[in-house]
């Protein structure tokens, strides 16, 4: 069953068309990564899926129901968003932040109960931030903070989790740690992972399928081996890249080739 189904999606910012006649289906339990150059509409697509932007045309269905038919709370119980950045000017503690994931499950006057605290602890254990639970968010490193936000998303008990460049500005070990967490989430809980990433190599390692966007249009959708070819990458990024298939299990390894100023 398709968890997310998009048909003929069009999105404008003013007169500028950001997404153009985009159609795609994401299957349950899939690890789906959206790649593409800066300004190709990746983040906008994610925001449309989270119902933060209203498309000008086309339809979006989540779990077989049109997205616009969801109430805010109902949507937040099905779908969690891990944004690229979060403001720290009014810092909450780690525990408070993770518990916020329970918010869509509480009524207007509800207070987090025993069950909610248990779920928050479970989520913090899962992402390895339990020992930080009394620390404030502004006292954490980037990698720790990202794991806190993922714990909050887990706490929402969603079926789909959307992430906007969750590994940006992290060192390689933390990048792999985050990706492993998401893969484990997918395997153990059957959560569908939809991610925007600039890291073609990480995407190739973890994704079941990739969507390559260029100027708001879907260039190709398919397995990493199908999408990450020399020709497609040149066409999409306008840059020569070396694609090496001799590494891990034949997963493509991408190296952008340096410009003419680097002596070789």
């Amino acid at each position, binding site marked *: 069953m398709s968890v997310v189904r998009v048909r003929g999606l069009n999105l404008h910012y003013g007169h500028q068309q950001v997404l153009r006649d985009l159609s795609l289906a994401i299957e349950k339990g899939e690890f789906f990564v959206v790649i593409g150059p800066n300004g190709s509409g990746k983040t906008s697509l994610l925001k449309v899926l*989270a119902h*933060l932007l209203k498309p000008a045309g086309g339809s979006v269905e989540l779990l077989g129901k049109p997205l616009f038919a969801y109430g805010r709370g109902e*949507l*937040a119980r099905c779908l969690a968003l891990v944004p690229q950045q979060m403001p720290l*000017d009014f810092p*909450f503690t780690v525990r408070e932040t993770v518990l*916020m994931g329970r*918010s869509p499950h509480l009524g207007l006057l509800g207070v987090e109960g025993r069950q909610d*605290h248990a779920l928050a602890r479970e989520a913090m254990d899962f992402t390895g931030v339990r020992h930080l639970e*009394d620390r404030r968010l502004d006292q954490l490193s980037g990698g720790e903070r990202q794991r806190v936000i993922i714990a909050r998303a887990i706490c929402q008990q969603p079926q789909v989790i959307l992430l906007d460049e969750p590994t940006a500005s992290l060192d390689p070990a933390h990048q792999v740690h985050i990706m492993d967490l998401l893969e484990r989430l997918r395997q153990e809980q059957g959560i569908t992972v939809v991610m925007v990433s600039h890291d073609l190599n990480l995407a190739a390692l973890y994704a079941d399928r990739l969507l390559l966007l260029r100027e708001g249009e879907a260039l190709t959708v398919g397995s990493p081996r199908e999408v990450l070819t020399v020709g497609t990458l040149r066409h999409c990024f306008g840059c020569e890249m070396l694609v090496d298939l001799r590494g891990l299990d034949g997963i493509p390894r991408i190296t952008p080739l340096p410009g003419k100023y680097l002596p070789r």
Partner: protein
Amino acid sequence: MSASPSLRARQLAVSLLLALLLAAAGLLAMVFGSSGLDLATTLTALWAPEQAEPTARAIVWQIRLPRILLAAVVGATLSLGGLVFQALLRNPLAEPYILGISGGSAVGAIGGMLLGLTMFPGVTVAAFLGSMVTLALVLLLPASRAATGKDSLLLGGVMVNAFCSAVITFLISLSQESTQVHHILFWLMGDFSMLKSEQLPILLLILPCLALIFVMARPMNLLLLGRESASALGVNVQRVRVLLLVATSFMVSLVVCQSGLVGFVGLVIPHIFRQLLGSDHRLLAPACVLGGGAYLVFCDLLARMLSKTGEMPVGIVTALIGAPLFIFLLWRARR
């Protein structure tokens, strides 16, 4: 198991403690004043008015109690108002007057005074209308494009306040009588000495606003994460923002038109409690109401005590104590 006490327990503890503080401040303010009453006389007048001597009864029931009530309500409203605006605008410098309430109500009040209206109801009503007009301007003008941009609201408020202060200075320069200027200056600094006890029932209108803000405390937490994160966590951002803006502005206008522009409470009390209690608005809202009330009752007592000649605007005392207190807390937090 988590070692930290539950939210409900913390709410209860904080509320009890601050309620005691408020009661203590109220009792002090009841006992001390230009005509000294001892504790026993005051308590008798309070609990068994029929047994008390008439002067003590009159001082307690007709002079001090209404004034203490007004100070407590004003302190509570301004502190809570500051807390809400800081969260809504996501700006730690926000205070309850920031959306043009101070400018508008001041123009209304001063206009009323220059027209020779009585303080109550004339000037009070004029001040309230003034703040409602400016508020409508600030809220509706940017609405055509970016009603939800926090900075457009903030800028609108700052501009309206700047314009109003020019009007205020102009109006003051028109005034010839020195007693009138004196009245105006007192109003601008916040003053409880003109109080009439029949004003007090109007303040009951604040209660529904308080209730709404308390209910909205959890969504307010989520608003601090930014518009998109809050939406993704199930908050109807637009609705929550509009409700909070309207309720808060309304209750702040209600107290401003009674008391003038008591400064600094709405800025410093929320920050003091943020330093002490963290960022959860479900804890901060009751703390600001009780703590802000206690603080202003205490400041008003000092204002009465410090000026032997008669009256000193309470707004002077709020800043004289509040600023050093806050700087101390900041300094302690940094260490």
